[in-house]
């Protein structure tokens, strides 16, 4: 049963983050996963300093709030300051991370407060914590991620038209009176919630990989957003399953293996569709 839960967890993360990742790809914000993994540090530290405990829940709330603040700051820098998106993102997350380290050093000297130690979950240990709801016993992470998955599905299909327009052609969208900023904010907010919640369940590396690699692979195959979603979901399954198998063979980290397998998938598609020249 352990294997099933792990593959299911991987699949849920892949499809929730992948769907958003495909919009991020079109907006040239693919590094958002990595940026958030660093930027939430001050949120965690402040939550720890206020609550005085390392229980996951307050830390998760702190991280989510900081994730939202990050998207706000990035948008402020790129929109008001007219800084190109990647530079705005880089400035904001390194700045926030530095603030986090300063806070740890200054105020929490004895405590190991680090996203890796206190926030990030471990995919390998997902099956060990189980709870029953509605008569079904499943790992806590699966419950959380099912909730997230439903939330992302809802948000995605509600916002589909707006995001489609504003992602492919934001100037045109603005000219016909669509409020691009609102669409942008809602996408980024959804991304930061999805990312941080997934961090808490399965750890950072898997989320960073699943946010961009399946979306990029799908982008090489098709440009149609709906088809991209289908391709991403198929890959989500293949990557989680293949990664789980690889980790069994190599006796290695499951999330790391899934990231590697995602890249193998990308590489195959890349080599087939490669432009010459």
């Amino acid at each position, binding site marked *: 049963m352990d294997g099933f839960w792990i593959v299911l967890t991987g699949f849920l993360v892949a499809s929730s983050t992948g769907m958003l990742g495909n919009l991020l790809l079109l907006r040239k914000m693919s590094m958002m996963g990595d940026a958030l993994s660093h930027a939430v540090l001050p949120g965690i530290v402040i939550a720890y300093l206020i609550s005085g405990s390392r229980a996951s829940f307050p830390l998760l709330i702190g991280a989510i709030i900081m994730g939202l603040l990050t998207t706000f700051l990035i948008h402020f820098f790129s929109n008001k300051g007219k800084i190109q998106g990647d530079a705005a993102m880089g400035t904001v997350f390194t700045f926030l991370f530095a603030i986090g380290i300063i806070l740890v050093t200054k105020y929490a*000297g004895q*405590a190991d407060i680090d996203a890796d130690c*206190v926030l990030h979950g471990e995919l390998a240990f997902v099956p060990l914590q189980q709870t029953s709801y509605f008569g079904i016993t499943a790992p*806590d992470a699966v419950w959380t991620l099912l909730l997230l998955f439903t939330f992302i599905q809802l948000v995605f299909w509600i916002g589909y038209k707006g995001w489609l327009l504003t992602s492919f052609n934001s100037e045109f969208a603005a000219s016909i009176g669509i409020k691009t900023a609102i669409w942008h904010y809602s996408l980024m907010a959804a991304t930061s919630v999805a990312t941080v919640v997934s961090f808490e369940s399965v750890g950072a590396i898997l989320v960073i990989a699943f946010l961009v690699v399946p979306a990029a692979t799908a982008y090489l195959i098709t440009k149609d957003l709906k088809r991209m979603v289908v391709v991403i979901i198929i890959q989500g399954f*293949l990557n989680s399953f293949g990664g789980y198998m690889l980790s069994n063979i190599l006796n290695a980290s499951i999330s790391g293996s899934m990231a590697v397998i995602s890249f193998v998938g990308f590489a195959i598609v890349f080599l087939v569709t490669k432009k010459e020249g």
Partner: protein
Amino acid sequence: MRKVLLYLLLFSLTACLTKSKKENGNTIKIVCTTSIISDWVVNIASNEMQIIPLLKTGIDPHVYKPSKRDLDILRSADVIIYHGLHLEGKIIEVLKKMEGPLIINVSQNYSQDLIIRDPSFPASIDPHVWFDLDLTRSAITTITQNLSAEYPQFKDELDSNMQAYFSQINNVAKQVKSIISSIPEGQRTVITTHDALSYFGRSFGFNVKTLQGASTVSEFGLKEITGLVDFIVDQQIPAIFLENIISPQAMISVQKGCKAKGFEVKIGPELLSDSLGDKEDQNTYTDMLLFNARTIAEYLR
């Protein structure tokens, strides 16, 4: 397309579900999170108990990443013993909620007065408690009591093993004390990068000075470096020590700073802090105490 997907799904399900069942042999599998706890348990356990460390020697709990094997180890365990005090990070939360095996938190009976806390932020605890002998005895007693309650047939054996191990620890403690007392009183100051030896210093009577707190996450600043250099030059401290989990760069920089101020300070070898070593004279708990004491004495005398 759909058919292919369906097949894949079915295939994966069967592949995932065919898992080996837990072996029902006579041996009791005890999984310990760190190499130090493992060594304690090895010393008190009965022959019918198999002890498996989750983190092998030389692996720092701060940077440990689990693999599929580790999940299988935890799944097959009859008893899981962990350290607590946030040493193992998020794994503790998983273990607390895990159902099935007997789970022992060795820190549950620690006397709170003995635990070193950050004075400005009491929720922050220095987790390197195995260097305090009273706390170590408390931890070992906790393990023995819990194991005896679960497996009453081994109670006498466990108790006598524990008494024997305690006297061994006492013996080693005496040796450590005499090694430390061979250092002239004014020179008993150990300088390392991160604060892992506070309990050790408190137990055996030497000062510990470090660049940063117990956390490997925090970073020291320029003021700490210059302060430490001034301190070494001022006190004429003969040697400073490395640690196996932090870049040696910090201590090299301190050494160069002292040199520029006209004082030569030696850099000693890596002291053991968060894990046992893999060499002959470092791979048990008592050897670790002796190794650290000998190294410190050799360089500070």
